[in-house]
Each structure stands twice: as structure tokens, then as C-alpha cells.
């Protein structure tokens, strides 16, 4: 396999819309932060130390069954263009911050369907991630932990009996585990309940962020919810806790959708119909408007108001209309207006089958 195949392929595993609760929980993610003993954390690495650190990680990586069976590939960022790295961000496979450098000792390890990835020398030496569609936190944890065990058999991890896995930032120390779910909550937003519910979630030890994680805004009614605390709880407890809150939010969203269909049938169908109308006829459309209208169309599909397109295709479309994906498709660099025009074209093509 090749890392670039994953980057250029439109579909990665998390976009599969048929998973458990996949109509509301778009995807689940587990991330494990790991570091090597005594080697300075990535923010202190200069070129020479960085190369040494990469060499150790590469050595361990090449001993792992995943590498030997050709299931995963490692690529450093000096071999990936800025556009390629940006496409990885848009597919949620690396963080926005990680994509900023073309450093030869930073990089990514990926498997073929994009479900398993590892960022090398991001904030920590290793950030092992598993990303699956729907509500599958336990499955994600099992897979991420499997890769963790493989690497650990070759590497000396920074671990302390009291503090657990040691990380660059003390907010990750302990389990080094961040579990998160990407939720689509349009009915909650329409009925004005999101702020209150999300504030209550904060009191339960969870954080809510936007579409692309830390520091990004909420767009298209997509919310990323994750655990805040990484120490003093076991991995299983963290996953179970997040899962329980997610199930409650899913139930609440379903209830509100049913109520909307009964109490505000025409208003709801009007909103969804208008969204589809604009998306299928617009010639220039910016990212935020497109995301918010696609959220309405998605709701229409999930509620059976619109037919003829699968949730998979809409998940794919949400990524395909991001700037780097648009420019790759057009095979040229484009300014904002050029992208807005291309975006409208891509959406029209994809939505053709809708009735």
C-alpha cells in the first residue's frame, strides 16, 4: 500500500454511514499519546535529535507485524506536499498543527482504509489513533491498543508508576487516552437546546469542540465530544463514560427529530427542501454555507424526507468540499472564489440522484 493512495482516495472507513447509530454519531476515535523515555518531547527536538528519534521509532515500526505484512505505511512530511498534508487534516487523519511543517522527522503511519493512523513527533513522539464509523469506541480502543502493544514491545516508553504514560502536556498524562465522538445534532440546534445541553456535558467531564478539533469552530451542526480527564480513571471507564453520554445525546436528538416531524412538519420539510434547492442550483458557495445546508440535507435523508443518496456519499461530500480536496480535484491552486465555484460543481454532481 501507499500513503498517497489513502490521501487521494475519496473514501476512508469512518465515512461508512451504515454503522451503529451512524445517522447521528458520524465517527468514533481513540487516541493514545506515547513518548520515548529520556528523549526530549517533540517541541524541544532540533533536526539532529529529531532524526535520531525518528530512527528509533522507524526501527521499532519495522519490527511490527503491521509493517511486515504490508498493512501500514510510514511517510515523513518532507515527502508529502503541503496540499497532501492538508488533505490528511480534512480527512481527520492528522491534526491541523501537525500538517504545518514539512519536517523530515515528523510524519504519519497509515493503514489502507484510514482506520488506524499514528502521528509521529506531533505534540508527543507517538499519537496512535483509531477512527471508525458510528459509535464504536470499544472497537477503536481494542485496535489502537493492539498497535500500542506492538510498538511497545520494541520501544522504551516514558512511563511512571504513579503518573502513568508521560506526555508533553500534563492534560494528557496518565492513560494518554483521548476518546471522542463526532456528532451530528441538527434537531438539537434547531430547537435551541444545544448550548444548555453542552454546558451540562462540561460538568460531566467532557469537552465539546468543532469539526476539526481543538480551536476550531462548530460548523454544520457537527460537534466533537471528548473526555477531559486522562488520569485516575481506567481506559475502559473513560470509554464507557463517553459512550453512556453519547447514547443519551443520541436518544435526545432522536426524540427532538420525531417531535419536529409532528409539530413542525411543513416548516421542517420547507427548510430541508430549500437547502436542497440552494445546493443543487448554486454556482458559487462558500464552505460554511455549504456545510450548514448539507447538514439540513443530511437530516432530510436520515428522516426519509429526501431519497436517492446514501449517508456515505454525504460524509464523503463534507470532506470533498474542503479547500485542499477541491484543489486536488481541480489539479490547480485556486483562490477563494475559484474554490467556491468548484465547490458548487462538486456538490451538484454528487446530489444529482436526490428525489
Amino acid at each position, binding site marked *: 500500500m501507499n500513503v498517497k493512495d489513502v490521501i487521494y482516495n475519496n473514501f476512508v472507513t469512518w465515512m461508512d454511514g451504515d454503522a451503529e447509530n451512524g445517522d447521528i454519531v458520524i465517527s468514533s476515535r481513540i487516541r493514545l499519546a506515547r*513518548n*520515548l*523515555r*529520556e*528523549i*526530549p*518531547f517533540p*517541541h*524541544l527536538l532540533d533536526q539532529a535529535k529529531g532524526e535520531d528519534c525518528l530512527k528509533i521509532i522507524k526501527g521499532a515500526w519495522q519490527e511490527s507485524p503491521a509493517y511486515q505484512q504490508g498493512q501500514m505505511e510510514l511517510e515523513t512530511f518532507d515527502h508529502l506536499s503541503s496540499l497532501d498534508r492538508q488533505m490528511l487534516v480534512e480527512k481527520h487523519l492528522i491534526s491541523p498543527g501537525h500538517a504545518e511543517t514539512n519536517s523530515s522527522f515528523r510524519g504519519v503511519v497509515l493503514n489502507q482504509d484510514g482506520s488506524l493512523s499514528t502521528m509521529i513527533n506531533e*505534540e508527543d513522539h507517538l499519537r496512535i489513533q483509531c477512527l471508525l464509523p458510528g459509535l464504536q469506541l470499544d472497537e477503536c480502543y481494542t485496535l489502537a*491498543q493492539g498497535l500500542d*502493544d506492538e510498538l*511497545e*514491545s520494541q*520501544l*522504551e*516508553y*516514558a*512511563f*511512571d*508508576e*504513579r*503518573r*502513568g*504514560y*508521560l506526555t*508533553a*502536556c*500534563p*492534560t494528557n*498524562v*496518565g*492513560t494518554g*487516552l483521548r476518546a471522542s465522538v463526532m456528532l451530528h445534532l441538527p434537531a438539537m440546534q434547531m430547537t435551541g437546546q*444545544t*448550548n444548555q445541553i*453542552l*454546558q451540562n456535558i*462540561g460538568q460531566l467531564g467532557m469537552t*465539546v*469542540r*468543532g469539526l476539526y478539533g*481543538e*480551536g*476550531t*469552530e*462548530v460548523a454544520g451542526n457537527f460537534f466533537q465530544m471528548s473526555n477531559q*480527564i*486522562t*488520569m*485516575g*480513571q*481506567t*481506559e475502559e471507564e473513560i470509554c464507557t463514560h463517553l459512550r453512556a453520554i453519547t447514547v443519551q445525546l443520541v436518544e435526545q436528538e432522536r426524540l427532538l427529530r420525531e417531535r419536529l416531524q409532528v409539530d413542525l412538519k411543513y416548516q421542517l420539510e420547507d427548510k430541508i427542501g430549500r437547502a436542497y434547492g440552494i445546493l443543487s442550483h448554486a454556482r458559487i458557495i462558500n464552505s460554511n454555507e455549504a456545510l450548514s445546508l448539507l447538514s439540513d440535507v443530511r437530516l432530510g435523508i436520515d428522516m426519509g424526507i429526501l431519497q436517492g443518496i446514501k449517508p456515505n456519499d454525504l460524509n464523503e461530500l463534507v470532506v470533498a468540499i474542503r479547500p485542499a480536496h477541491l484543489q486536488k480535484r481541480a489539479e490547480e491552486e485556486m483562490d477563494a472564489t475559484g474554490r467556491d465555484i468548484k465547490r458548487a460543481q462538486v456538490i451538484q454532481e454528487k446530489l444529482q440522484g436526490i428525489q
Partner: protein
Amino acid sequence: MYCEECKQKPAAVHLTQVFNGNIIQSHLCEECAAKKGGFIFDPGNKFSIPNLLSSIFGSGYNMDLTPVAETPSCPNCGINYKNIRETGKLGCSECYRIYEQELEPTLRRIHGNSQHIGKIPSRGGEKVLLRKQMEDLKAQLQEAVNMEEYEKAAGIRDSIKELETKLA
């Protein structure tokens, strides 16, 4: 006064945030305030993650008063506690040992706790795993004695002796 965000509607929500002694005031209309919700993440705003972190390290309001210059640097990576407080990041695994005392309240503040109870790596954590096993065995021994199951207790005692030689 008009809303700072949309500059069209009158500002109805007046927000005052205090960070490291700096006062940040925002004036927003109801709509823009609702958009921002309880989580305001504006990269241009001083309310940023590193700032938030460095305030976690300090006591929040009297950071400048606490002497930090005298703290020694970490012999492994050369970072001192002042750097850590400024960046919100430690330098290497050894910093956790060197600044153990300073970190204790920080960890409690973040996690409400400072003791890891999750996964243990089988490699670096061999001794830790053995010690955990030892604790379990001792508890089992106590239980067997309480139940007057002396044969079972003798078996457990042998396992403990075996473990002790491994730990030595």
C-alpha cells in the same frame, strides 16, 4: 454600543474574562453570543490554550509573586520550571521526576487526581506489574487466613515468595 462580531445589532451580552490578571471584555449581540456559546475559541483572542495552561500551572492570580527563577533545570533536557509554566509543556520524561512536587497540585487541578490506574506497559512496567500482582496475592492471603483455609494460604505464600525473588 454595537456587537463586536456582526457590528449590526446592539450589544446585549457583556462578557468579562480575567486571565493572568489581564481583563478581556467582549460585547456581543444575543445571536453572536449564542453562536460562541460556552466555548469561545478565537485564535486571535488572548483566551488561548497555552495561556489557559500556563494559568493552570500557576495559582492563577499571583503568578508573578511566586519565585521561580531559582528552580534547577532538568539535567536531561535543560528545561526549568519557569519554561514549563510559560509553555504549558514539560521537556522530557525526566521532568516529571525532577518537578514532581511542583506538578502535584497542577495534576490535581487538571484531573482531580494524580495517580494513574490504567494500562501498564508490559515492558517498562514489568516491576510495576509484579508489584500489583504482589498486592493482589497479599489480599488473597489475608482472605484465605480469615476464612481459615490454611492449605490455600500456604499455596499463596509460596507464590508470594516466588514473586519476592523476582522483584529483588
